[in-house]
Structure formats: C-alpha cells, structure tokens
C-alpha cells in the first residue's frame, strides 16, 4: 500500500512507458535513464528492471517449454546489456538472476509431468535440439539418442542445462540420479527423445528397446505412460507470474523486514542509525509502535544528508502504520480503509521516538553510549560484506572497537551473488560539486576533490543482516545466496 509520490518522476514515467512500447526500446530507454542517473537507489532500479523483464518476457518469441533455453539466453543477454549500462548498480544483476531462476524453475516444474518426472534429461534434449544451436540431428536422427560421446555434448557446453538439474534438485528435493549424464556417456542407457512427432518418439523407443542394456531401477521414464506425446507447454504465463511475485516482493519488502523490528529494538535502547532507505525508516516506525527508544541519526554529509533528514522529517511513505497508537481513534484494522491524516503525517518524531541528529565526525564520541548500530545497505555481497552510504565503514569500525553490534536491514533483492574481488570498482564517485561549489575558481583546478558516495564494509564489521526472509549472520549469507539463486552462476558482468 505504497503512497504515490515516492518514486522519482523518471521512474514513474518509465514504469508507465514500459507497458506501451517494445521491450527492446524500453531496454534502450532504461539504459539511458541509468546512464544519466535519473533512476538511482537499489529499490528504484530493481523495480524498473523487474518491470522491464516482465515486458521482455511477455514479448519474447520463446514461449514454449522447449524453447526455454532460448528465453534464458535472451534474458541473460538483456541482463548483460543493462549491467554494462550501470555496472555499479549490482541490483540489476540480482533481479536478472532472480528472473532467470524463475524461468528455470518453471522449466523444471513443467517438465515434472506424470511419466516425465524423471525424464528431465530427455526433455532437455529435445529442447536443446529445437534451439538449433546444438547439433541439429537430435530430432531427425533418433539413432543419436543412443549413447555416443556426441549426445553428451550439448550439456557440457551449455551451462544452462546443468542449471535445471541444480534447480530441480533443490526445489523438488526428490532424488534424481546425479550422474544420469555420465550414464549416457558410458552408453548404459539410451535416451528416449520425446519430441513432437510420434515418429520420433517411436524411433526413440525403438532404439531404447534395441539397446538391451538393463536400466537403472530408479529410472521409470520408460514405463508405458511415456508414450504420451511430449506436451510442449507454454511457460510464459508462469514465468510472468513469477516476475509479478518478484515485483510484489519489492513492494512488500519494507514491511516484511519491519516485522523483525520488535525483536531487534528493545525498550529504552539507544540506536545509532546510518542511512536513509525507506526500509530503515519503516523498520524504525514499526518498532516505535511498541517500543520507546532513542534514535541517534548520523547526518551523512554531504551526499546523503538531505535524505537522512527526510527520514526524520517526512512521514513514512511505505507503512500504513497498522496498529499505531492513535489517540481517540481505533487503529484501522481494515486495510482498505483510507489512512487518516494523522497517520499520513506520522513521522519518527511524532510517534514518540526521541531523535538526535549528529554529524559524522561525532560518531566516535557518541558510540560508547549506543546499544546498537543500524544501517541500510546499497547492496550485500556473497561473502557477507556490503556496500552502503559513504562513512559506514568508519562507523562500523568504531562500533567494533566498542563491541557494539552492527545490524543491517535490507531486502533480500539487494543480496548479490557476486564476490568482491575488486571492491573499489563497485563504488561510485559522485559529483565533486557537492563538496565545493564549482564557481569557486580558487579551488577548481587547484585542489583535487574526491567525493565517493559509497563505502565498502567488510563482513567482519557487520554482525547481523535482517532481510525479509529472516536474519542471517555474514558468515551464513552464502546459504541465502544459494537459496535465492541456486548454484547456477550466470555471468552478467
């Protein structure tokens, strides 16, 4: 139940535009917007990319299950293009990977039809051949279904095939012989080729029968039911549904994260806060419903100070503040009821949280009085480190010195499977004029000015990540990465 006006105009325009133009054009438009930095912040970028992918998938010519490799390839291509446009918005890669995951999942689920449950390999075979990028004689020449090194080739080359394996294993939790492929290589099984034509199928079955090698007992794919022709399902609808869920997740993420607030903010605590993300704001607001605490806000001058003040000044834009203590009026239990003006105006200060704003330089001085440090994040990396507002590293280091826990709140969409081999390249250097006015002729050209807008915080300095799927320590974050993206590695950069 987001209140309008939260989005920057460029994003609003793009979200409107994307539904009316071709996906390719929309990609170019988004590329331009990203390059011109008209859309910034992980959330907005994620929304735009998800919407674009929705459009892209719905217009893609690959709709059938058999063509899913083509779809995956196209989406990956699109992802590479967008990542190249703005390599520092790592969230682009996250969203694209999530959508790739959705597609793979759909592939697997559709494949898991009765009788085909364990024929994933066969299904994939036919798909691979139908794309035409691999040896074309798979469909036409069923003899190739018999085990030859040749038949193993497509898999060894196309990583995507392994992906499905991995996805299916993870999702269904059912046991699938891990090395079916190896078996084929050894020539122990013949592969049925459940292609569109009856003929092919018969050929395939025929070749199976010809091959008298005993089959593994847990390979029931050759039961008579398999005679049904392979149903080439249209997966587009399901994929779109998956992307919609992802978009919903982006809308809901703040509240989901905020649900954990009560367990992390206790009564009469002093919480030091760095960052201006709506997630953080919602988190604090939600905590304020039940608890009385003090917020020490770090100013984050000069790049983020205005937004930081907005967190204190402006009403929360994302929470409907259900259950907010509202004198005289019962809180609206019904979500459809419009918000009262008091609720709309509710700010951190108005709900009774004591707020203190301090400059960045005062952090070490105040740190000893603080119970907890709370931060937002720009992106979280696989190894538990993260990228966030400039100055965060100093704050985190200072907190460590005082043994004060550093807690990061963030949506899981910000979790990137990338490893920070070169953290510097992930950081953005901003406009020099935020430090010194360009009109100052004595400084311009004489003094070198650097204005990094982001900071890299290594995992050792963070104690806890709170995401919409639960809390994690930096050390355990890799598990969450696995869960979100599978073991598939899509190189988009």
């Amino acid at each position: 139940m987001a209140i309008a006006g939260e989005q920057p105009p460029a994003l609003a325009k793009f979200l409107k535009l994307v539904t009316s133009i071709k996906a390719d054009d929309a990609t170019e438009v988004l590329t331009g917007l990203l390059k011109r930095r008209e859309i910034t912040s992980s959330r907005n970028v994620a929304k735009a990319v998800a919407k674009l992918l929705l459009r892209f998938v719905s217009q893609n010519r690959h709709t059938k299950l058999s063509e899913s490799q083509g779809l995956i390839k196209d989406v990956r291509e699109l992802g590479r293009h967008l990542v190249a446009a703005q390599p520092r918005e790592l969230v682009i890669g996250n969203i694209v990977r999530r959508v790739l995951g959705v597609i793979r999942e759909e592939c697997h689920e559709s494949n898991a039809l009765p009788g085909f449950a364990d024929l994933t390999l066969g299904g994939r075979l036919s798909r691979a051949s139908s794309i035409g990028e691999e040896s074309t004689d798979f469909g036409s020449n069923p003899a190739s279904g018999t085990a030859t090194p040749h038949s193993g080739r497509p898999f060894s080359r196309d990583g995507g095939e392994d992906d499905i394996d991995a996805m299916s294993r993870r999702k269904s939790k059912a046991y699938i012989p891990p090395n079916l492929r190896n078996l084929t290589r050894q020539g122990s099984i013949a592969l049925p080729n459940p292609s569109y034509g009856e003929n092919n199928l018969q050929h395939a079955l025929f070749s199976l029968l010809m091959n008298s090698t005993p089959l593994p007992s847990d390979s029931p794919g050759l039961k008579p039911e398999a005679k049904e022709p392979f149903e080439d399902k249209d997966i587009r609808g399901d994929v779109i549904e998956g992307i919609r869920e992802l978009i919903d997740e982006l809308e809901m993420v703040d509240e989901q994260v905020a649900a954990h607030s009560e367990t992390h903010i206790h009564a009469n605590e002093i919480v030091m806060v760095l960052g201006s993300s709506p997630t953080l704001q919602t988190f604090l607001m939600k905590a304020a419903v039940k608890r009385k605490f003090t917020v020490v806000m770090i100013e984050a001058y000069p790049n983020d100070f205005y937004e930081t003040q907005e967190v204190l000044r402006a009403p929360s834009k994302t929470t409907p503040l259900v259950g907010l203590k509202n004198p005289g009026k019962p809180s609206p239990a019904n979500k459809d009821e419009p918000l009262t003006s008091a609720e709309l105006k509710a700010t951190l200060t108005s709900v009774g949280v004591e707020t203190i704003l301090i400059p960045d330089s005062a952090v070490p001085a105040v740190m000893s009085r603080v119970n907890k440090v709370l931060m937002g994040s720009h992106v979280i990396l696989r190894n538990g480190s993260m990228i966030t507002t400039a100055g965060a590293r100093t704050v985190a280091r200072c907190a460590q010195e005082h043994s004060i826990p550093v807690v990061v709140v963030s949506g899981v969409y910000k979790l990137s499977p990338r490893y920070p081999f070169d953290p510097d390249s992930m950081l953005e250097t901003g406009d020099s004029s935020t430090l010194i006015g360009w009109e100052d002729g004595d400084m311009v050209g004489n003094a070198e000015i650097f204005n990094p807008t982001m900071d890299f915080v290594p995992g050792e300095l963070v104690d806890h990540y709170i995401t919409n799927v639960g809390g994690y320590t930096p050390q355990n974050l890799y598990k969450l990465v696995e869960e979100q993206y599978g073991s598939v590695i899509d190189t988009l950069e």
Partner: protein
Amino acid sequence: MAPASKRGTAKKSGFLEEAPEALLQAVVIADSFNKRFRPLTLEKPRCLLPLANTPIIEYTLEFLALGGVEEVFLYCHAHHDMIREYIRDSKWSKESSPFQIRVVYSPSITSVGDVMRELDQSRLIKEDFILVSGDIVSNVSLQGILKEHKARRLADKNCIMTTVLREVSPNHRSRPRGENALFILDQNRERILHYEYLKQSDSESAVFLPRELGKTCPTMSFQENFLDCCIDIVSFEVPPLFTENFDWQHSRKDFLHGILMDELYGKTVYAHILKSGYAGRIQSLQTYDSILQDIIRKWTHPFCPDTNLDEQTYKYTKGHIYKESKVILAQSAVIKDNSIIGSGTSVGDGTVIAGATIGRNCMIGKNVELHSAIIWDNVVVGDNCTLGNCVVASDAHIGAGCTIESGAIISFGVAVEKGSIVHKTAKYTKIGTKAEDLIEYEDSEDDEDEQIETSMGGLDSFDDEFDYSDISDFEDDDGETPNKKKKLGHTRTPSESEADSFFREAYNSLLGALKQGHSVDIMILELNGLRMSANAEFSEVRRATATAVITYIISRLAGGEVAKAVVDEILQKLLPLFNRMIFEVNDQVELLTFIQKELSGKEKGGVLMQAVGMKLYNEDLCDDEGLLAWWNDDNGPKGETPEMTKVRAGAKAFIEWIQQDDEEEESEEEEDDDEDDD
C-alpha cells in the same frame, strides 16, 4: 528522420498523459559560426570533436534528454553531412530515443539569427522552446527552470526569455578569455535589465544605458561575473522578432542587447542563476580544455567518461583515472591522476602520463612525457617525445624526440618529423595540400589581446577575438587558397566582408519576401533599409536582387509552371523595385550580367534569359542600348564560362530582333536629327 506521426503514436502516448500540451521542443545550433577551432574544424564540425573521447554533441543531447525534451531540431551548416550521418547512426535516431531528432540544414544559415529566422519560416515551433548550441556540457535538470519560466510567463506576458547563468569567481579557469559581458539585473536578481558585450581590451570604454532604466528600477545589480552558457528558454514570440530585425546575428550581442535597449518592444528577459549543477559551453580551445578538466574531475557527474555515453568501457579508478578495457601499459609506465586512456592504446616503457587524455588505438612510445596533452584516436607518438597541453587530432603521427609545447594544435593526419620542436602558437593541418607537406596554420594576429592571452600559456592562448563574425566554420573554405599562411582572423578587407554580408542579408530577405508573397513596397523598404545600414553600393543591390529573383523563378519553375508566364508575373510585380535600382545604361548591363550569371548552368537558362530580357525591355526598364551593350559587352569576352555563353545564346533571337529594331530606329533618329538640324 522518422516522421512525426510514426513515432508520435505509440511511444509518446506515455508522455502525453503527463503533459497534454505540446511537446517540449529544443533547438540545437550545431555550428559555432566562428573559427576558433580552426584548423581542426576544417575537417570535422566542432560538435563532433571528441571531448573526453566522446563527441561533444553527445553531452548536449544527453543534457536535453535529462531535461525531458521530446523533440529536437538540430540546425547545422558546416559539415552538415557529417552531422546528419552521425545523428542517423546514433542512438538518438532509434525508436527508443527519449526525443525525436531532426537535422535541419540550410545553406543560408550563417548565424544564430539566421537559424531563428529559418525557424520562424518553418513554423516548427508552437510553444516555448529551449535554445542551446551544440557544444553544451551540463548536468542541470531543466525541469525546474522550465517550471519557473512558465510561472513567469503567466505573471508577465512580456517575458520572452529565461536565460541560464552561472556565477563564477573572477579568475575561474572556465571563464572565456577575451570576452565578457555585463549584465544589469533588477534588485531581486531575476530580471535582466540590460546587456552589454564587453571586450577585455576595451574595458575602459563607456557603456551607454537607456535613460529610462534608472527611473523604472532604482536598484540595480551590475554583474560581470556570469558565465553565460547560452542555455535559453525562449518564447515562441522570439523567432518572429528575428525576422523583423534581419540584421540580428548573435543571440546575445544583437538580440538580447537590442531587445532590452529598445523600449518599444516592451519585452522582458529573466535570468535563472544556477546555484548548483554544472553548465559550460565550449566556446574556445581554452574552455574546451577547462571543461575537459571538469569532466575528468567529476564536476559534470553523471556525464563522465565512466558513464560510457558512447558505448565505451571506461572504468574509474582512484585519482580520477579512467581506463578503457584493452589498454596495454608497460610495466614502468606511470599513469598519474586525472588521465583518460582509450581502448587499444599501448603505452611504452618509462612513459609518464600526467593528466593526459588519450583516445583509442594510440601508440605511445617509450620515455614519452605527456603533461595534460589531449590526444585523439589513432595517434602515434614516437619515443622520447614531450607533449605539453596541446591538442593532437586523430591519425596524427609524431616522430621520435619531438617537443610539442603547450597550446600547439596538430590537426588530423599531420605527421610531425622526428626531432622537431613545435611552438605554442603553431597550428598544423594537412588540408589543402596534396602531399605530406605541412602547412603552418599560424595565428599571426598581433594585437594586444593576443599578447595578454599568450602570456597565460597553454590552451588559453587561442581566443580569437574576432569571433561571432558571421562566417561559419565552413563558409570560406572554397574561396580561399589554404596553401599559404593564413591569418585566423580577418582574411578579407572589411568592405568586402560587409558587402558580402549585405548581399547575403538582402538576398535572404528578398527571397523570403518573395516566397511569402509580401508586397513590393515592403521589399523596397527592407532593401533600402539594408542598403543604408550596410552602406552598400547599388551594384550590390542589383546583384542581390538578380540572384534572389532568379532563384525564386527557378523554384517556381520546379513546380511545373510555364517559364514565360512566371517571369512575366514576377517581374510585373517587381517593376517598382527594379525601377529604383536602374538609373543608367551601365546599370542595365550590370543587372543583365548578374541575371545571366545566375542563370548559367540552370535548366532552361537560355529560355529564361530571353523571357527576362523581353520583359525588362517591354516594361522600359532596359532600353535597346542597354541590351545591346550587354550583348556586346562580354560577347566572347574573358571570364565568361561556357555555361554563361549558353545562357546568352538563348537570348540570341531576341537580341537580333532588337538589333533590327534598333537599326530601324536609328535610321528614324537620323531622320529626326536631320529634321532637328533643319
């Protein structure tokens, strides 16, 4: 360019919902109309020169895209074909471009004023629009300024322009040297009351203000510290004003000054003084260099090399160093802060790159020192060279052991021999030569300003004082022989260039009047005004008239009308005009010669010549004496091209008829004389 309808349907619908009014239009003038970038602009238009390895025009278009512009008209003159081609192949012509772009070329454009007049005629503009030149680098969002402008328009109907200004400290490196402007603002520093163009050399001279100024505005703010980036939000009423004042050339010196000086207009101009954001205009090599420095140092964020506007692969590393992928650096090469290196470039051992900008596929040898040098693509720099803050254009070859001082310009494809020393004022180009020999394209302007500027060193030294001359980069390539040393400033004597400019103006105004069917009285009035203001000879008037009329006739003929009828109709209408410029026989001859010249090489030239001659004869504008004098004057003379002879041949029948007629008359006259004698 895609027609409006094609794009307008699907794509723009999203925008239209937001703003049901007209599209936001912008006019980009992709020509500087001056020669400060010579000799580089001999081969490439200024707006396509690389700035931080991205063509300058990209920055302007990105800026407009950022401002939410939906339609762009790109007016160009010099190298218009290159610009057109560039735009056609760029992302801006694609469906996905944030705006629709149209490249407009007209040979008659030689100043900003011409563009505005052209704009007025084309009727492309329906709403207030943004006027910028094609060399703007800015990250300011126009939306806020537009909103302010609109609010002001509602409050003050006479507000015709909002101009974007930037306050800078006096010694700011981005201030264009050699030129300055005085703005007089009202007490709120919103309205511009007066504008005066100042030259640094004559800062002592007095400035005359309108008397009323003091009465209406008791408090005024005199400011000279503005950086005028020529970003204007202009009302649709402005182009017609330019048409009215056909002598306005420059948008500041003529238009802004003129409109504020003259109480009669009663128009107001407002200033938007930028408080944040970056805006700069590449007006000269000095500003080119300083804006490049600003881009490297992230003042223009997000328009920096690592944004990869032009599909590059730049990556930012600490110290404002931008490197593209596939750069080959020797282990002992040193890259210091504020450097840009394009892909495919290799740098040899022991080379020091200190704040230099290097394009793609360059070969930098060993032990080279590059201090703030600006090197474009495919340049080869030999071993042991030292380059200062100079510009080395694409495909240049610099031999081993050269020293190139700050301020030198090595244009496209020039090869500098090994061991040579290039001085700071040197400008080398290959244009106009057949072989590899170089021409020194030297600025031998020896006045005071030059001295002052040279002392500033580096690229600062190139401000050509005589900018804003109405000659575009392209204009005088054809006429002059570039093989010899040329002056950068005035190559023509003042009278010549004045005559030329008069001719052009008169021609344009006449042609425009003819096309729009103005009455002949208006044309006479205009022509007279022009003649007086330029102090032009009648001969020039005749030339302009002949050219304009013939051009018009030919354009009408293209529509398929009958030659004779058209000529008769047009000349009939213009009789009073011709009457005022023909006084004696010589004038007739001259006029006919101009007409003949104009008709040469044209289809139906002969037929037209005859028709025109007959008409003039019939209307007694030309008598047989004049016609015959013309006929005999250059009959078989020097300087007549075969085409002109062809035209003349067309009129043969008519002349012969006159000759006969004449002879008869003569005999009659003789008789008369005889009678008189009696």
